């Protein structure tokens, strides 16, 4: 099977790769590019652990083909901090202990970033529905919601 040559932008860097036609963006990120921050919890778009932002849209990278990213922009968890400066969401997740096992955390952070970009002042209900595509089995979501609320305050002040 012939590979598809793809040139795309990931976290601001131009990246070129060869992938199979049926290979998902998640597999490309993890297996070809060594970006293992996006996790595969289900592979069917039901858990959100593989969330990335594709041209300003939040998507499950398990439901995107690698070939589709030609000429587009992908943002992953690896691009969220600036050098050693954490994004306010990352900082607040730490402060609020919004993670226990942490496997869902990259997906939640990406989804929360997208949520706050579109709605900088969300209500608790908007946060809860906005993050409903991300499963967490450890926290009961309480501390995640609080971390996002707190980060929203910090980001509005910035």
């Amino acid at each position, binding site marked *: 099977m012939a590979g598809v040559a793809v040139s795309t932008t990931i976290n601001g860097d131009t990246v070129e790769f060869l992938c199979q036609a049926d290979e998902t963006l998640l597999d490309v990120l993890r297996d070809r590019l060594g970006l293992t921050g996006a996790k595969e919890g289900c592979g069917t778009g039901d858990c959100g652990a593989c969330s990335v932002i594709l041209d300003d*849209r939040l998507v499950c990278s*398990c439901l*995107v083909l690698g070939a589709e990213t030609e000429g587009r922009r992908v943002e992953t968890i690896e691009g969220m901090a600036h050098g050693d400066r954490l994004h306010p969401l990352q900082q607040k997740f730490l402060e609020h202990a919004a993670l226990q096992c942490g496997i869902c955390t990259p997906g939640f952070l990406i989804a929360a970033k997208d*949520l706050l970009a579109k709605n900088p002042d969300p209500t608790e209900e908007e946060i809860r529905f*906005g993050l409903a*595509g991300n499963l967490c089995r450890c926290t009961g979501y309480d501390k995640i919601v609080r971390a996002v609320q707190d980060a929203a305050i910090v980001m509005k002040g910035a």
Partner: protein
Amino acid sequence: MRYIRPLSMEDAVGQLAGSSGTSAILAGGSDLLVRMKGGFIEPDLIVDIKAIDGLSEIRETGDGFSIGAAVPCAVLGESAALKKAWPGVVEAAKLIGSKQVQGRCTITGNLCNASPAADSVPALVAAGARAVVVGPAGRRTIPVQSVPTGPGKTSLAKGEIIEAILLDKRAPRSGDAYLRFIPRTEMDIAVVSAGVNLTLDEHGVVKSARVALGAVAATVLLVEEAAQVLIGSRLDEATLERLAKVCAGACRPIDDKRGTIEFRRKVAGVLAKRAATTAYARAGGK
């Protein structure tokens, strides 16, 4: 397996028509990739239609709206004009999957996936939406309810692609609504659903109506008898009770992992009542 991204409908249709083996159309991919992951389909050819000119646009025309086949449902929610005219269709589209899926999934894909539980389909059927089909034999426009013919099956021929979904321009005093029942608040497939579309006369009496039910038969049901119950009424309590009864009676549900026959019958009626009430209010009825 090949992946192609044609730039024109002609090319896409030609590639599909000329392909041997299994082919698949890729727009949002939220159904296709899941089926590929599960090993239910291994297409030899994947035709990504997102680069085709115009397919990613919502156009407002003199006749109404034309929603391109590759428009993600999230974009439907961002169109103020569409939301104003067809709030029921938009709320149905916005119920498909998570925020992540919303950025990808399309109402055309939802229709062509041909699930009896598809969220946008009862709303589209109630709205009287039509699909523009382009194929080797040319272009035709058909009612959306004639696209799915059974679970996972459509009436589309080899090489045919739905280019757009058409929604009529709204008559005054019209409203539509869609409701589904799911056990959680999000992320579930509809156990049962109802779409209602109404137009009132100057006195607030229902002039025309369409009622569609989802997940209660092999395809979405357009319940003509339910529409007749509503027409001529102001949605008083007795009318709503009759509507519920007619809808429950129209169902041909099954017992499965998501619900029982009894539950689906009962709740189909409840949802029809509630959706009708919302649609009526949206149409300006009091």
